[in-house]
Structure formats: C-alpha cells, structure tokens
C-alpha cells in the first residue's frame, strides 16, 4: 500500500528528544561549554561552602585578630595557609568568598525563581484573557520597566528596611516585569497556533491547555531571560550591598566583601576587595555566556 512505503523510507532514527537535540546544540560553542562547567563549579562551591571552606570565617572563636591583613599565600600561626590572604579582622578570604558566593547566588537564584513564577503567571494571564486585563497589566509593566532597576530597588529598600528577605522582595519586585513581558509576548504568538486550536477542539480543559500546551512552549525565551535576570539580580544585590543598603553584615555577600576591602584598598591590601571582585566577575560572566548560548540555541529563527 502506498501509505506504508512512506513509512519504510523513514530512516530508523534513534529517539531524539528535544532535550538531546538541545544539549548537542549547546555544546557546539566551546566557550559557552567552558562557562557552563565554571558555573557548575561555582554552584557546587555555593552549595557545599561549609564543607569545603578551609576555615569558618564567621566562627568568632576561630578567627584571630593576629591573622589580620595577611597577604595571599601566608601561613597562619596554626599552620593554615591563607591562599587569598585575610581581611582586616583576620578572616580567611577564600572561605569568605565561598560563603559570599553562597549568599549572592542564593539571593540571586531565589529572587529569580520567585520573580519567574509570579511574572510568568501574570504574563500568561495577560495573554490568555486579553482585553482590559492585558492592557492594565502591560501598562504596569511598562511603567515598571521605564525606571532604572537600581533606583527602584533603592526606593524599595528604604521603604522595606534591611534584611535578606527584604532584599529578595525588592529584587522580585524589580524583576517580575521582565518575565511577564517575555511570557506574554511568546504566549500571544503561541496562543494563535493551530495546536492550541486543536487542543480546544478536543474539548480539553482551559487549565490543561494553558499549563500543558501553552506554558511549555513559552519556556525557551523564559529560560534565556531567567539566566540573564539572575546575573542581573546578583550584580544588583552586590551593588546594594556595596552601597551599604543591601544585606546585613552578618550575612556578607560578595558585594559586602568588596565594600569592606574597598576601605583598605589604598593601604596596599588590594586582595581584600580584589578577589571577591574577581569571583563576582567570573560568576556573572559565566552566567551571561551560558545565557547567550541558550538564546542562540533556543531561538527558533536560527534553528536549522
């Protein structure tokens, strides 16, 4: 039969999931691949900081003022090597950076995830209901995005006060609009595609159509925005902390470490703020490189 012949021609492909295809496309760019592994390393450090740090920089019993201001590579009195030196209170800088990464990455990712959930729910709603709901939501988004993020964050912090939770709230409020705009844009395009019509023709429920059909197809641009926004959140938090309005001193992020070292920079203790700065730079650059490659791979217009 003629129909069967068409099947016979189809070469016996291995089952190639979109994920497989995506991963092999991603690996095409070697720089992005390196950035990806660097990022994995950073995430590993952030998660296991308490285990892998040479010392606990916040255990006051173990921090000795006699170890303060030691240059990188110096040994302490009890034979611990301070590879990156110590700060003005005698804390091991390497350990401080590990703990700082944990805080910076934690705040960045957590605020990113919350903003993503809230923003995409709002964006989906705008696209699905349209009309006044859409107009209202998009006006708020436009207004929000027309102010510089740092300004909005500063105002929010001065209203909310200090603290990890306050910083996360401020970062979420600054970021949700990016997610909402992205999801709405994609959902408006996807909503009019025939597979959505097919789903409604099959009398599937609205919930199922939105969450099983619409949302998964809005994910690619969302993932890209999420990486870029996470890097943005981390640097925003660092800026706020550097300005002294971010995280409390008891939870020093990379930004606070840089600020602490900044005061003694001119006295020759360059390492106290230099190494946390490098750590922040590597983190943000690697997230952005991964994000760029994700954008290239997920962009349907570039896809072969």
């Amino acid at each position, binding site marked *: *039969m*003629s*129909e*069967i012949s*068409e*099947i016979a021609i*189809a070469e016996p*492909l291995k*089952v*190639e*999931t*979109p994920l497989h295809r995506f991963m092999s496309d991603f690996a095409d760019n070697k720089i992005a691949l390196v950035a990806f592994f660097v990022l994995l390393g950073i995430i590993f450090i952030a998660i296991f900081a308490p285990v892998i740090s040479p010392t606990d920089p916040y255990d006051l019993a173990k921090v000795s003022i006699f170890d303060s201001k030691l240059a990188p590579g110096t040994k302490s009195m009890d034979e611990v090597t301070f590879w990156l030196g110590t700060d003005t209170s005698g804390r091991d800088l390497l350990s401080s950076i590990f703990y700082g990464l944990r805080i910076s990455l934690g705040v960045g990712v957590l605020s990113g995830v919350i903003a993503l959930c809230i923003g995409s729910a709002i964006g989906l709603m705008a696209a699905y209901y349209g009309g006044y709901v859409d107009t209202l939501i998009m006006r708020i988004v436009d207004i929000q995005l027309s102010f510089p993020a740092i300004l909005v964050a500063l105002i929010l912090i001065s209203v909310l006060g200090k603290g990890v939770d306050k910083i996360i709230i401020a970062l979420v409020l600054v970021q949700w609009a990016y997610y909402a705009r992205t999801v709405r844009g994609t959902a408006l395009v996807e909503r009019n*595609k*025939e*597979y959505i*019509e*097919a*789903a*409604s*023709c*099959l*009398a*599937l*429920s609205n919930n*199922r159509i939105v969450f*099983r*059909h619409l949302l*998964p*197809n809005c994910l690619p641009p969302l993932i890209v925005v999420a990486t870029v926004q996470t890097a943005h959140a981390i640097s925003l938090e660092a800026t706020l902390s550097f300005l002294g309005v971010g995280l409390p001193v008891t939870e020093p992020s990379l930004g606070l470490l840089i600020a602490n070292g900044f005061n003694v920079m001119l006295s020759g203790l360059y390492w106290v703020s230099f190494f946390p700065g490098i750590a922040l730079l590597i983190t943000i650059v690697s997230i952005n490189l991964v994000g760029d490659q994700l954008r290239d791979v997920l962009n349907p217009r570039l896809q072969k």
Partner: protein
Amino acid sequence: MSEVMLEVDNLTRNFVKKLDLAGRLAQKLGADIREESVHAVDGVSLTIAKKGVVGLVGESGCGKSTLGRMIAGILPPTSGRIVYKGISLTDMNFEEAKRAALEIQMIFQDPFASLNPRMRVVDIIGEAPVAHGFCKPSEINKYVSDVMQRVGLDPEYRRRYPHQFSGGQRQRIGIARALAVKPEFLVCDEAIAALDVSIQAQVINLFMDLREDLDLTYLFISHDLSVVEHISDQVVIMYLGRIVEVAPTAELFEKPNHPYTQALLNEVPRVDQRGRDYQPVEGEIPSPLDPPSGCHFHPRCPHATSRCKAERPVLREIAPGRISACHLNDGT
C-alpha cells in the same frame, strides 16, 4: 432525502479591530479613523447530509476557515445557528455539548503548527482519549498504536516527537489525533494544501478509506476546485463571506451556473500553478474590509450590469438540489 448531520443557519462572524488608546484619541480629535469590521462569514446557510462529503471552495480570505472553525466549535459565531444532529449547539446541555465537540473534529492546514512540538506522538494522540475516558491511562500505548495503524503510521514511532516526521506523516498524526476521540464529522481545512503533490493523493486516499471504514461525514475545505472534484458529492462555492453557488459535484463541473464558479473552473486544468497563494480568477480580490456593493463579484464579473452594483442577488434554487446567487438567473 438522507439524514441531516449538520445544518448551518444564517451564520455570521464579524471580526472587529478595536481602536487602541491612540486611535480613540485621534478619532476624538477629528481624524478619519473608524473601528474596522470584517464580515468574514456573512449569513451562510448550508446543510450537510450524514456520510456526505461537501467540498467548500473559494479564494483565500473568503471566510472558509472561519466557517470551518465555527462549525468545529473553536470560534463562536457572531450570530446564526449551528444545528448538529437536530439540536442547536447553543441549546445543548453540558454533556451533549461535549459529545458534539468531540464528534466534530478538525484537521488543520499546517502540519507543523498543528502539532504541539513538545509532546510525544503517544501523548499528542492519547491525551484527549484519556482525558475523556475513552481509554485508561494504563492502556494508552495500545489505544494509540491501534489509531496509528489505522492512519498508516508505524506504532513503533509513538515515542518520537513531531519534528522527527515528514510533512505527510505529521498530517497523519493530526488525523490520528482527531480519530482517537471517535469523531463522526471531520472538518478538513486545506488539509493537503501544504503537502508535496506526491503525498497529497496518499492523504486523500486515507480520508476516503476512513470514510468507508468509519462512516465519516466530511466538510472538505480547499481553495482549489480540482482537489474536491474527486472526493465530494456536493460543492459549495464561497465568495467574500457569502455562498454564491451550491451544486452536486458532477453537475457543477459539467454546467457551472455562477460566473464566479465558471471563472474558477476555467483555471482548473492548470495543475502546474497549484499553490497556496494561487489566485485563479482575473482581477484583484476586493478587500473584505470594504466589500463591493450589490453582488460582491460585480467588479470582476464579465456579465455585470448596473443592477448588479445596486442589488444583492439572493440564493435561488435553479434546479433540484442546485442553488446560485446571480441576477442572470432571473431572466430564465
């Protein structure tokens, strides 16, 4: 007269493009801007018999898809009635409406856009039958395999994703998805227009085999008369939102009545020009935003008179089972 499957009564659908804020402001300030309204479907009535195959033909933009979508329940009509198996869709209770929604299925034009790219074939085909209780979640593989076999797809491929199939195979997946909810009436909207010519015949044959096996009724939409010639028993010709002629297929091809049908037929043998945006009749299609007065076809009609510009011709019976909307029929 055979049993009636579906009756459409004076069905109308307008698309209104609302003015945005800037537009409304400009209008207040005296600019010549109005809300734009398109009568995509303008008072269409037609009857489809059980197990019948009706071909719906007209140039691109004449409202075929809009009509098909309304019948398939995807798009609500602006006014008019759709009566399925004797009950108006709006009068149905929840259960009846769901049954009707599943019994009327649509096959789409674009074999790429009509399949969710992130679902495996087994889920694309099996989602609705499981959701509606046609099969248990544990039996989805067997159920889907049966349907795939019926449309000529190898069930071994059910765990693949749509991008791993050719256009023809994707269209079969779309057909399988519809068949999986046991439909009785298929609206095929340009279902073969996007396929290679060599594959088109295979898919048409599949439709006809399914008709035999499952007693299906079809509304077969195409911009190309030659596609419906061999499969439909009745042809409906649409022009700018209105039906202009309805006739049994053989009679229509033998003796077309409406000047527009005649113009369409003149172009049929030129198979080499068959394409998606192919415009068979001389002259531009008028803008549906601003349709011509009287008979919509008068700017392109070789027989147009002053009466055609002023007065809209009504659909009249010109022979048993044949209707046409043209003033030329009044003389006889």
